[in-house]
C-alpha cells in the first residue's frame, strides 16, 4: 500500500473516531453500535476459524482449504482421519456453538426487553428447565407414549418437545409476573425459581422411572455440552433457531418502545399484544431448540446483552444482532476452553460458562442494585 494511501486511511479512521465520540456525547450511539457490529463480525469469523484449527489432534486448516478447493495434491495433503476431524467433528461443533450461543444471547435480550428487566434470562427464570422437562419427557416416555410424534417429526421431535416445554413455562411465568401491563421483578424471579423447582421435580420423577439406557441418554444430554455436535443435530436445531432469530429484528422497535411500559408502547403505536405473543413464541422456540441439542448452558443470555448495553446502549435494533454475534463467539471460545483446558479430556461447557458467568452476574447485581428496581 502506498504511503499516502495508508496515511489517508489513518486520517479517515481518526475522523470516524472523533465523529463517534462527538455523537456519543450528544447521546447518539447509533454509529458506534454499527462499528461495534462490524468488529463483532470480524471477531466471530476469527474465532470460528481458530476453533476449527485448535484441538487435541493436529489437522491444519490450510491443508483443509487446499483439499476443499481441489488442489492437485489434494489426496496427499489431507489424510482421511484429518478430514473426519475437521469436517465431521470440529466444523459441526463450531457451527452448533455459533447457533446455540446466538440463540441463548438473543433469547436473553428478547426476554429482558419483554419483562423490562436486565435480569430476566431463560436460564434464570425456569424457561430452560421447562424446555429440559419437555426433552426428558420425550427421551424417557419416548416411543411408548410419543411414538406418533417421532413418526411425524423424526429428529425434530426432541427440539419440538423442548420448545413446547419452554413455551408452557414462559406463558405461565408471564401470567404470574405481569398484571395490567406491569411486571413485578420480584414476582418474576421468585416465580422463576418456583417453576424451575417444579419442572426439575417432574424431571426427577422421570429420571427415577428411566431404564439404564434412557438414564445414560438423559445424563449425557443434560451435562450442557457441544461435545456431541454432528450434522444431524444441526439439521434438527438450525431451522428452528434460525427462524426464531430471523423474527427478532422485527421485534426491535416494539421492544424499544415497551421499555417505557406496555401502555406507553401502545400509545406510540405498537400492537403490544401481538408483539408479546411473537416474542414469547420466539424465545421459547430458540431456548427449546438450544436446550434440546446442547443441554443447559447458563449465563450467556444474561452476560452478553448486559456487556453490550454498557457499550452500545439498549437500542434493540443494534443490541439484537450484536448479541447474536457476541453470544455465538463467546460460546465457541468457552467451548475451546472446555476442550483444551484438561486436554485430551473435556470439561462440560456448562461448567465453563458458569465459572465465567456467575461471578459476572454477581458483579451486575452489585453495580446495578439501584437502577434495576431491586
Amino acid at each position, binding site marked *: 500500500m502506498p504511503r499516502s494511501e495508508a496515511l489517508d486511511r489513518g486520517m479517515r479512521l481518526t475522523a470516524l473516531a472523533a465523529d463517534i465520540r462527538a455523537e*456519543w*456525547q*450528544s*447521546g*447518539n*450511539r447509533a454509529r458506534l453500535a454499527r462499528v461495534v457490529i462490524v468488529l463483532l463480525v470480524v471477531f466471530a469469523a476469527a474465532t470460528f476459524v481458530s476453533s476449527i484449527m485448535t484441538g487435541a489432534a493436529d489437522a491444519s486448516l490450510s491443508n483443509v482449504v487446499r483439499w476443499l478447493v481441489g488442489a492437485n495434491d489434494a489426496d496427499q495433503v489431507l489424510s482421511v482421519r484429518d478430514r473426519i476431524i475437521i469436517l465431521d467433528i470440529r466444523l459441526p461443533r463450531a457451527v452448533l456453538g455459533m447457533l446455540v450461543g446466538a440463540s441463548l444471547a438473543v433469547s436473553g435480550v428478547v426476554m429482558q426487553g419483554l419483562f*423490562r*428487566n*436486565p435480569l430476566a434470562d431463560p436460564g434464570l427464570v425456569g424457561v430452560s428447565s421447562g424446555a429440559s422437562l419437555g426433552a426428558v419427557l420425550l427421551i424417557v416416555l419416548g416411543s411408548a407414549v410419543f411414538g406418533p410424534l417421532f413418526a411425524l417429526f423424526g429428529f425434530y421431535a426432541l427440539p419440538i418437545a423442548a420448545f413446547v416445554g419452554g413455551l408452557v413455562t414462559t406463558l405461565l411465568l408471564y401470567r404470574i409476573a405481569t398484571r395490567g401491563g406491569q411486571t413485578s421483578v420480584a414476582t418474576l424471579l421468585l416465580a422463576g425459581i418456583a417453576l424451575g423447582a417444579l419442572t426439575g421435580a417432574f424431571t426427577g420423577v422421570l429420571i427415577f422411572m428411566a431404564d439404564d439406557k434412557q438414564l445414560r441418554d438423559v445424563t449425557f444430554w443434560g451435562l450442557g455440552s457441544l461435545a456431541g455436535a454432528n450434522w444431524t443435530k444441526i439439521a434438527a436445531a438450525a431451522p428452528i433457531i434460525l427462524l426464531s432469530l430471523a423474527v427478532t429484528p422485527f421485534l426491535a*422497535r416494539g421492544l*424499544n*418502545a415497551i*421499555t*417505557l*411500559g406496555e*401502555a*406507553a408502547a*401502545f*400509545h*406510540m*403505536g*405498537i*400492537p*403490544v399484544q401481538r408483539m408479546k405473543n411473537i416474542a414469547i413464541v420466539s424465545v421459547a422456540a430458540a431456548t427449546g431448540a438450544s436446550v434440546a441439542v446442547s443441554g443447559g448452558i447458563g449465563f450467556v443470555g444474561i452476560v452478553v446483552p448486559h456487556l453490550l*448495553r*454498557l457499550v452500545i*446502549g*439498549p*437500542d434493540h435494533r443494534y443490541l439484537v444482532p450484536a448479541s447474536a454475534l457476541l453470544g455465538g463467539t463467546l460460546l465457541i471460545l468457552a467451548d475451546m476452553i472446555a476442550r483444551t483446558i484438561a486436554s485430551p479430556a473435556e470439561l462440560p461447557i456448562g461448567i465453563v460458562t458458569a465459572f465465567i458467568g456467575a461471578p459476572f452476574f454477581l458483579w451486575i447485581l452489585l453495580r446495578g442494585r439501584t*437502577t*434495576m*428496581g431491586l
Partner: protein
Amino acid sequence: MITVSNLSVRLGGRQVIHGISLEAAPGALTAIVGPNGCGKTTTLKAISGELPPESGSVSINGRNLKGLKPWELALKRGVLPQSTVISFPFTVREVVRLGLTAGATADAKANDRIAADALEAVDLGGFAGRFYQELSGGEQQRVQLARVLCQISNPVADGEPRYLLLDEPVSSLDIRHQLTIMQLARRFCEQGGGVIAVMHDLNLTAMFADRMIMMKAGMIRASGAPSDVLTDETMEAVFGCRMQVSAMPAAGVPFVLPQTATL
C-alpha cells in the same frame, strides 16, 4: 374534536366511570380536575384507547377508537403518563427519539431536528447526552413530554387536528417549569391542536384552561369556563373543603400565585 359519549369503565370488577360525556375541541385546552381517585386518570386512559369502555364510546376526529389501529392512533394523539420508570440505560436523546416510533420520516436530518426541537421546548437543550436514569423526577417528566412532542410534532397534520393527552404534566415540576410546560400546551392549542390535561393545581388550571371539567366519584359535577366552574359551591361539593374562591388570605401570611409570574 375528541368526543366521549356515555362512557362507563370498569376496573378490576368495580365500575369507576359512570356514563360520562364530554367534548374536547381543537384549539382549546381542556382540564380535568377532581379529588384523588375520582376517575380522572381512568377517563384519560379510556380516551387514549388504553382501557376499553364497558359501554359508551370515544371518538377522535369523528372516528371511533375501536376501528383504529395502534399506529393510526399514534399519529392522532400523544399520551404523557404520570411517571415512567426505565430499567435500561437509555440516553435522553434515545428516549425522546422513541417518540418517532410511529411517525418517523425517512429524512434522518428532519428526525434529528424534531427531537432537538422537542428537547429545547421543554427547556432541556443540553441534556441529549445524559442518561435518563440519572435525571431528577422533574427532568424525567420533561423528557417524557419531549418524547410525546416528538410523536406529535405538528398540532395539525393532513388537515386534521392532533391531540396531547397529559396526565398531571406539571406534578413534579418547579414553578418556573410548570409555567413553561403550560405555555407550551397553550401554544399547541393556538396552533390548532387540542389538549386534554389532568390537573391538580387549580390556580394553573384557572390561568391556562379554556374549559374545565370537574369530576367526583366517576361522574362529571361541573364543566365550562374556569370562572364558571371554580365557585365556592363546587369547591365544597367536589372537594369537601369549604373555601373561598378569589379571596385574599389573612394579612401577614405570604402567598405566591403563578398568575403574577413573568417569564
